């Protein structure tokens, strides 16, 4: 088998400013540090918001209070710049503290299209759902208790990409002391795949197996969402990448990583 660290060296994290959390970026930084890869952050300013802001009745409802106020292009642009600056500072700090090379690219467009285009030459593409309506609390987090680390999910279809995904997932699980959840295709031979996964994962990792309900299901992410998840690694399909990603992102509450 080919060593992962020899070939995996470019990581893209596509940031959706509307999601307002930097979880995908934090995870990407961690992965880049682990595999000594180059991290590129793609900050996508959603063109839909700018279009909406031009409409005469455009209103924005405050996340915390529900009060309505006009949505203006200038305000949207200011907010985007502020978010981009936040990302830049985070990246800069990560580059210094984790000794990784980074770059930031800001584009205006549609999130998925921009991510697919920029991630063409990357080994890992971190995505978050740009369309989900998941609620992000505006309140500051209260000190939370020490919880067990969330498991890492990986879709294993026996492809070379899924083996790389598995390899990276195993490494992360070992570092975090997290469990590994392996999602198998609906038609996979469970025993055979288990053996392969075990052989690749090695000893000392708790592995749990799940099966994708339907290969054409649009709710792949949702099935993962019902369980706890820190990261979902999916081998990049040869089919249309955007559709492939959207299929797994649907309802997903953790970053999705497409692995080449």
């Amino acid at each position, binding site marked *: 088998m080919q060593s992962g660290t020899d070939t995996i060296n470019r990581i893209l994290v596509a940031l959706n*400013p*509307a*999601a*307002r959390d930097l979880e995908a970026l934090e995870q990407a930084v961690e992965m880049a540090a682990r595999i000594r890869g180059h991290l590129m952050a793609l900050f996508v300013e*959603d*063109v*839909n*918001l700018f*279009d*909406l802001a*031009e*409409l*005469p*009745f*455009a*209103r*924005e*409802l*405050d*996340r*915390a*209070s*529900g*009060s*309505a106020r006009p*949505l203006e292009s200038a*305000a*949207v642009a200011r*907010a*985007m710049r*502020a*978010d981009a600056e936040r990302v830049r500072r985070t990246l800069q700090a990560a580059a210094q503290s984790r000794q990784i090379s980074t770059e930031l690219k800001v584009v205006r467009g549609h999130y998925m299209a921009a991510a697919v285009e920029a991630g063409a030459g990357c080994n890992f593409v971190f995505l978050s759902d740009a369309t*989900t*309506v*998941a*609620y992000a609390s505006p309140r500051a987090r209260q*000190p*939370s*208790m*020490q*919880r*067990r680390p969330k498991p890492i999910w990986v879709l294993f279809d026996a492809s070379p990409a899924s083996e790389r995904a598995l390899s990276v997932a195993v490494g992360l699980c070992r570092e975090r002391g997290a469990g590994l959840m392996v999602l198998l295709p609906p038609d996979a031979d469970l025993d055979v795949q288990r053996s392969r996964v075990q052989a690749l994962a090695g000893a000392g990792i708790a592995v749990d197996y799940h099966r994708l309900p339907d290969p054409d299901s649009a709710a792949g992410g949702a099935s993962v969402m019902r369980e*706890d998840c820190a990261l979902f690694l999916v081998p990049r399909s040869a089919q249309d990448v955007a559709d492939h990603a959207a299929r797994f992102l649907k309802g997903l*509450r953790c970053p999705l990583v497409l692995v080449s």
Partner: protein
Amino acid sequence: MTAPPPLEAKALYVSCDQSRLHFDTTTELEELDDVLGQPRALEALHFGTGISSDGFNIYALGTPGTGKFETVKQILEQQAAKRELPPDWCYVYNFKQPHKPNALQLPAGHAVKFRDDMEQLIDDLSAAIPAAFETEEYHSRIEELERQLSERRDGALGELADEAARNNIRFLHTPAGFAFAPLDEKGEVIRPDAFERLPAGEKRGIEHTVDTLQKKLQKIIHQFPIWQKETREKVKQLEQEIARYAVEHLIADIKARHGDLPEVQEYLDDVEKDIVDNVRDFRPEANPQASLLGGSSQPQGLARYKVNVLVDHGGENAAPVVYQDLPNYANLVGRVEYRAQMGMLLTDLTLIKAGDLHRSNGGYLILDAERVLVQPLAWDGLKRALRSREIRIEPLEKAFGFMSTVSLEPEPIPLEVKVVLIGERWLYYLLSYHDPEFADLFKVAADFDEHMDRDGEVETGFARLLGTIAARNRLLPLKRQAVARVIEHSARVAGDSAKLSIQLRGLSDLLHEADYWARRAERAHVTRDDVQRAIDARVFRVDRIRSHVYELIERGTLKIDTDGAKAGQINALSVIDLGDFSFGQPSRVTATARLGSGELVDIQRETELGGNVHSKGVLILSHYLASRYATNHPLSVAASLVFEQSYGLVEGDSASLAELCALLSALGQLPIEQSLAVTGSVNQLGEVQAIGSVNEKIEGYFDICKARGLTGNQAVLIPQANTRHLMLRHDVVEAAAAGKFAVYAVSSVDEAMELLTGLAAGERDKDGVFPAESVNRRVEEALISLAMRRHEFAKSEEGDEED
């Protein structure tokens, strides 16, 4: 009248009759458990400690060194042994008003056990609570609750998003919230120009739909805090359930150990409820700063369950008898201390410190009255506590009214204590006069006498007292002769041969010093010589000034004649008191007389060097002269009296006899024997009255005479009333016995004048005439002569005026 004979030597010193001391050394004597010679004070102390009514606290008054403290302590300890042990007191957390810690009363000896149990509970809780919240089950249930909330919110938003999608509208996240955007036929957000091209009705429809969706979204957002609150409540219930499970068996364990104490049971119920209600405070993540601040590993909130034992009577078997050497406000009523932490002053109930009122509660408190009064607010604090019958700890600055900082206000503790103030008499009378509350709060006066009557039985008891002091201080036992000498010395200290001084401090000091000299001489017992040496050595150490004064007299700097005879000049005797030592000093008093109109000038008074009592004595003289010698003619004399070479204040009337004799001598030109010295006061009738320090005065004159050589003519005239006070030094007594020195006791001026002049004083015959060549005749004639001259002088002046 016949001049009195000199006093016999045995009258000058009353020796102790050793035949009444039936022992060889004091080791044969039983220790004296009772107090000697204070019947009045003892009665008052027994009464004061026996009565339990309000305000019957005790003031033990008397001069320092009379054994007030030892006696009071002894009596109180006897009474305390008969009383039940008072309860323990501790402060615990007040769950309703945290700044007012509750006082908890526990049976004697239980407070420490309870405190230790609570310490153990805190230790156990600090481990049990985090452990309970680290279980897999707890995490799963919390995550389930959070997921429920998340799904509820996302579900509501998702349904709205679906409804929007059915209306060809997209639900979008904006940087600060949400928005709805209409879509074009390609499924993208419609461009503004495309929207403008739409028919007006379609535009209004879109706007209406967006508006409707926004209102629905607002309703949903408004539900979010409610759902969050519901979830928080569920989380809290879950946490309480887990906390209760973790702590109830620990609390039950302590409750079982203190099952007989309802107050403790009640408090522990409160503790359990408080832990369950506030369990988040006790989880490690609630106090992340603890390690930075160098705090304990225990969760900070648990510290509030600590028990502060204020008073512990464990291991004691009598009610407390407490003496406070430094009775300041805080030491009396307690205080709340603070600890500095990160630049702030913090406090908690464990920093409440007991005062002596707490420690003596249920027993007795002994205080030095003067020390209480000189400490700021201590007297007020003590009175307030006694008046209110409770101990309220208040910061000093609050008591002063200076500041009103946030601090603890510990619950007052009921007070039942008997306070005994120890102080001098003047202070007692001062307080009685100036402080109305004093009489209400200290109704029992225990008056300690400085002396007791000297008789055979008392001397035996006194011997036991000496033996007890020696034994308790590990001093050498005293031989019988030594005891006798101490008894005689005590009579001398009392200034009365029929009394004994019970200045225990001085007595104890004397025994220690005698013990020192006995040990230096390698003796197994203290002998009479050791006692005498101790007395002499003590005098020697402090008599530098006396030696200096005597040296001045010896050199003639201070003029004192001890032989010859002179009119208008006499040796008076005064006493210089140096506090712990006093000595007699002869002083020359002179008088002059001339024609005048009855003025008697006291030069001391004119120069403001005479005290009021001295001036009174001199004024008496002029009236004595007038009433005795000038009843039928005007007192036509101008006389003056002065203490020669006296440059300080002269006070007292003990020289008035000498001054009168000098005056009579000057008037009658009667030479006075300078080998004699005189002391005594005199009244208008010419009777001689007692004075103080008679022994010191006699010895002072004796020392001067002895230095110049005793002639047998030298003597001191003292008032008859002072003879019982005589306890003179042995060398004086020996000189008197050998006829080399004498002491005369006189009862009238006439007796004194006879001794001083060698002439009879003379009594008026039936015609009212004094005998020829008598003192009084000479004086009267001199006064009549002056009166006649004055009359003639007045007539000649009248003639001159008529001319």
